[in-house]
């Protein structure tokens, strides 16, 4: 659930940048990105490519959005491509980053981590997350960029695309400060970014929406059906379970709060994302 804390250890110059960097940290979960949903064949006949005719079944609360994530290292001039699939059905959203696991958030703050190969899952209720000192921004899980964060950026342009209106946002970038340059193309009807670029000077991370599909309840439920679930609260009594032992060893059941305090003692907000050591 945690991302690696190193990017957060840099001096933080503003709250906006802090929130956006949390988006950037989604990256650390994307190492093994695979189009899990595409391979599961759900919605194959309802696919709506961005260049295809508009699918009216897609709404802000029911969609499957695929992103390509590109990381460019300015020092080595190398690029890394990964993927992220967001599947939302009403109050639930799935984040699929890799083949090993994917994550689900519910609007009530509950979080589930699924392990497809083992058909096992770990559920974290709100109290579990609080006890682990994890305060997640649910809005960010559902929209990649929380509306309150977006509201702190400057709207520089609006236009009408083939299917959706688009809004272009920028941050008030000051070249004299160590603050990333942020650029977002926003789809207000879906409350999702069409594209998102964060350039820290050392590296640039870009999210590009590549595919948008409709989703229904049956399709969504099929993605999370037949998993043997365990409450995180019960992990402590389940370390003799080979699956639990393996996942703890591999760091998928999180430990460690180190790095989540800034130099002035402020608790930094962990993000949904990769495991943490």
């Amino acid at each position, binding site marked *: 659930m945690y991302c690696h804390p190193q990017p957060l250890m840099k001096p933080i110059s503003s709250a906006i940048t802090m929130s956006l960097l949390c988006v950037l940290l989604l990256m650390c979960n994307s190492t093994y990105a695979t189009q899990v949903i595409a391979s599961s064949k759900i919605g194959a006949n309802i696919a709506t490519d961005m260049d295809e005719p508009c699918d009216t079944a897609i709404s802000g609360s029911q969609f499957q959005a695929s992103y390509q994530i590109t990381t460019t290292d300015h020092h080595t001039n190398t690029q890394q491509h990964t993927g992220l699939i967001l599947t939302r059905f009403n109050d639930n959203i799935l984040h699929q980053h890799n083949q090993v696991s994917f994550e689900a958030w519910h609007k009530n703050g509950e979080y589930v981590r699924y392990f497809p190969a083992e058909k096992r899952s770990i559920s974290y*209720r709100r109290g579990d997350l609080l006890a682990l000192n994890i305060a997640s921004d649910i809005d960010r899980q559902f929209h990649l960029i929380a509306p309150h964060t977006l509201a702190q950026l400057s709207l520089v342009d609006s236009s009408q695309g083939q299917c959706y209106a688009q809004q272009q946002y920028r941050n008030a970038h000051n070249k004299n400060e160590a603050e990333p340059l942020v650029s977002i193309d926003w789809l207000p009807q879906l409350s999702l970014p069409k594209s998102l670029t964060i350039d820290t000077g050392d590296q640039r991370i870009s999210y590009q929406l590549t595919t948008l599909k409709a989703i229904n309840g049956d399709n969504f439920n099929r993605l999370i059906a037949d998993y043997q679930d365990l409450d995180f609260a019960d992990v402590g009594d389940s370390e003799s379970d080979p699956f639990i032992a393996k996942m703890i060893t591999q760091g998928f059941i999180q*430990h460690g*709060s180190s790095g989540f305090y800034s130099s002035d*003692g402020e608790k930094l907000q962990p993000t949904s994302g990769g495991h943490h050591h």
Partner: protein
Amino acid sequence: MMIKRVAALISCSLVTMAANSAMLPSVQSNSPWFTDSAQRVMDKANLTTKTQAKNVILFVGDGMGISTLTAARIYQGQQITGNQGGEENALSFERFNHTALVKTYNTNQQTPDSAGTMTAIATGVKSKAGVLSVSDTSLRGNCLSSKGNELVTLVDLANAKGLSTGVVSTARITHATPAATYAHSPERNWEADSNLSNEAIANDCKDIAYQMVMRDKDHALSVALGGGRRAFIPNTVTDGENKNGSRKDGLDLTQAWLDNFDNAAYVWNKDDFDAIDVANTDHLLGLFNSSHMEYELDRANDVAGEPSLTEMTTKSIELLNKNDNGYLLIVESGRIDHAHHAGNAKRALMDAVELSNAVQAAYDNTNPEETLILVTADHSHVFTIAGYPKRGNPILGLVHDVDGNLSTALDGKPYTTLGYTNGPGAVIGQRDDLTSVDTQQNDFMQQALIPMGSETHAGEDISLHATGPGANLVKGVMEQNVIFHIINQAQSLGGTKY
């Protein structure tokens, strides 16, 4: 001659007392420390304890080791206006006159789990980790091996004697500790039928929820309150808090409870719980959460509302008290353990304090001449109270020495009084600098030494506290299964030839 001898003895003892008093300076003998403790000893010297209990209430703080008791008493004490630092405080049951230390190991583990430890308490026989009230000749997770190895529990005996019985927990009511009191299973995780293995199904082992509800009328629980609703309803049903059931067999055990027992009631939220008419209810099932109930700290945020452990205890006593023959009530504070596993001391301490409140409520609502109250834990945790903090230093805070200076370790960083030997609060690499961190906030995770996904149980002894008839049996260092025998004897349950 005899009178002279007695007179001589009395005069000698008076001389001794006078001589001892004379040897003590007034700064000593007039000290409140001295006078208060002298009075306590006098009280103990005059203490008489009945041997037969009509009622027994057994409280179990899951994971409530002695360091948890100490920290919880200080935490509670520091909330009291006019406290002298908090250390002088006592949890309700720490004022009980009878105390013992309890050895917790399982037959196969030096550091135990809750299933094995509660089996020892409930049956008088130690068993292995992971199994519920079956002997250790059973193989964990193997149904067939458990057949014929079922152990009779305190609840079974109490019901057979015509007593009313109740089980209360803030964990799932099918979780290991409460389950060991009424179910027999070689696998603690068989909470619903969907958890059963193929082998278990083939050999007709029943899941724990099923066993709880399907007890015959003469051995039915009168009260079952806790979490764990999902194991009682079909997976096709969504409950009142928008959670799915987990049963595959289609059984609605909440309905079965209503069908099977006379004057039965089922509630799942606090409003319905509060509205229960005890006078007209003989079998009360309350399932307040799909899984575990909320931590006490988070209880107010529950979707449909949950009663506190104190409220559940009080209501249970009110209902059980209708049986003139008496009752056996087992109450677990199940989430002290979970908060420790998460490395979050504040939630563990708040749940321990709430257990103390529940014990006080039980004491206040029972006759001490006829009710034996026991308070214990199933096992400890690797939870420590460290450093040399000054008197009254916030128990959740950073260590400040007697001069009020922030204490630092060899790495130059401060540290908290409370910590864990292992768990999620440990890091690989350098630990956090907590200088400017509010370590008393609700969600602070204490630092730990060894990184583990979940903090672990500990193997040292835990305590047993008692008051009421039969409490005199609580003394010394004992095996955990002795607790069964104390209850068995005090309440004459007939489990042995006392």
